């Protein structure tokens, strides 16, 4: 075990579990033997300075790294105990269970309705138009966007404000009915008010989804997460309850980062 801290949880409580997970981008060792367990029904924040591997770790969970040329993954990563990188597992199936929200809001240049209906359509989740309408409405409702957009579902999703776009993207992810939602710095392109709304939403979603969020803002990590993992130079330095990480970090590196001495 290279990682200085290894968390041992009873297997049943881990939604996603990484064991000696390493990622190489060509020659670069982007993630070095990470052991980390993500618990169900919690928000886990991944923090650390730029290039520390937190986004790489996040993108392993829904195999988004497959799209990167020259990326190699070793070690094991499981979702509900089954291997995410198993050859027999179809990545389409995995991504239906693990949704993702990106750094920059990226709605499709289609109507608000079609943005949300796209996922259910490609997976065949709705048997008829009524069911599809139902899914779209529920997703918008859960993303706290319904009141704002219910009169203009046919307008383009790109016409919304940045914060609304990001919540639209969250609604779009929810519409597929995932178990895990990955968020890669979802608020970095938003103003403080939009950020507050998204954070509130993340808190609401916690009951139904396991959420992993990468963030550069330690305040945000402190506000929205129950557990926090600190990465540095491709290694997992420390993981623990958010309160403990921010008040009583065990590692000097963590201490240095959260007090703003580097990063």
């Amino acid at each position, binding site marked *: 075990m290279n990682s200085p801290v290894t968390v041992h949880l009873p297997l049943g409580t881990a939604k996603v579990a990484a064991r000696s997970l390493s990622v190489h981008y060509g020659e670069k060792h982007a993630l070095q033997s990470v052991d980390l367990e993500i618990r169900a029904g919690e928000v886990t924040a991944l923090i650390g300075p730029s290039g520390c591997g937190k986004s790489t770790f996040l993108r392993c969970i829904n195999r988004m790294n497959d799209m990167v040329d020259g990326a190699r993954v070793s070690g094991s990563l499981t979702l509900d105990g089954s291997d995410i990188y198993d050859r027999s597992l179809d990545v389409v199936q995995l*991504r239906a269970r693990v949704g993702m929200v990106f750094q920059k809001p990226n709605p*499709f240049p289609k109507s608000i309705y079609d943005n949300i209906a*796209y996922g259910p359509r*490609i*997976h065949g989740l709705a048997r008829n138009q009524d069911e599809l309408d139902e899914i779209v409405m529920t997703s918008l409702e859960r993303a706290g966007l319904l009141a704002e957009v219910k009169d203009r579902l046919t307008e383009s999703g790109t016409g919304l404000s940045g914060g609304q776009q990001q919540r639209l993207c969250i609604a779009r992810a929810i519409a597929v009915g995932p178990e895990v939602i990955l968020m890669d710095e979802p608020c970095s392109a938003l103003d403080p008010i939009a950020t507050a709304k998204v954070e509130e939403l993340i808190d609401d979603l916690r009951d139904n989804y396991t959420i992993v969020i990468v963030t550069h803002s330690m305040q945000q990590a402190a506000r929205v997460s129950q557990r926090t993992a600190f990465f540095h130079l491709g290694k997992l330095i420390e993981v623990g309850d958010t309160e403990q990480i921010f008040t009583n970090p065990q590692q000097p590196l963590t201490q240095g980062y959260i007090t703003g001495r580097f990063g």
Partner: protein
Amino acid sequence: MTETTQMARLGAVRPTAEIVAARLKRRHNAERRFRAVGLGAVLLALGFLGVLLFTIVGNGITAFVQTSIRVDVTFDPAQLGIEGDTSADALAAANYQAIIKQALYRTFPEAKTRGEQRQLGAMVSSGADIELRKMLIADPALLGQTRSVWLLADDDIDMAVKGHIPRQPGIAGNRLSDNEIRWLDELESRGAVKTRFNTLLWTSGDSREPELAGLWGAVVGSIYSLIITLLVSFPLGVATSVYLEEFAPKNRWTDLIEVNINNLAAVPSVVFGLLGLAVFLNIFGMPRSAPLVGGLVLALICLPTIIIAARAAMKAVPPSIREAAAGLGASKLQVVTDHVLPLSMPGILTGTILGMAHALGETAPLLMIGMVAFIVDIPATPLDPSAVLPVQVYLWADSPERAFVERTSAAIMVLLLFLALMNLSAILLRKKFERRW
């Protein structure tokens, strides 16, 4: 040394503002010069374009009308050679040239000698009988009656009426005999000469007689060729681009393919013509002069253009859209068909239209596959021999008659019109669907 003393020392030599001010004038002058040169270049280019268009329109505009001569024609069964037999076959085979000649001889009874009569007969086009045949077949009751008919004039008469060749005897360039000039003046004074819209130009194929020669065969040939080109190059080009852009691994082989596609875009088109001759005609034994082969050769020529445009359009689709779709569980193909292709389609179509416009104007490769042949018939299928517009321009420009000069310009105008329409549609398409990210 502190910063202030340094500043003071520099300032004592020459203040910065003064140095900047001294150079300012030179900078402004340079800018003005550059702008003047740019404007001059634009004006020069516009001037050339203006001269080109002015020459072409000036030469060609008269080709859209054609001179006719009014004569009183008697549908005499004896002259027509159809005593009593009024079946359609007999009417179709009747000798209409004879009644035209008789009508002319009656108009100018002073033409007595064989030579004079031959000159008189030559004032009317050798294709003038077609109209009479149509009249009689439509209404056989005309048989035995006399009708005043506008007959198509010969091309020399037409040129003289339009003023393209001089009408005075003894002046260089005059192609009419003294008799013909007299008769023409006589007809004009009787109001029996007029110019009408030139329908034949739009309805008939090529002819050795300028007044009978039309563009329609070439237009149909061009349309068939372009349809074949589009059907072959668009799917091939888009499929190639999708594969190279979205699916192919980035390695030495795909780099090699990319370099070669870019090189293909620069290969002289006549080389593609030779390739078509060697492969499509000689190996596959496809018909010579056919729009099918022309279209295939043109498809090869536009393929690189389409691939390059399509790849650029697909590259312009932001990766975040691909990630968004992939993140929702869309398969690679769904990402392409649901998002990348629809979003890049305006760019792909613009590139395709520009490629097609290029293909429409292409001449050299078509000469190689025999589309330069003299073809009178309008092609009924892409397998029939045919001309295309630019080759028709080439053929007519090569013909000695003065009347073909104006027809060449008219053909160029039609070709330019098609090209302008295609480019305009490309611009409108781009304007309408242009998307900023």
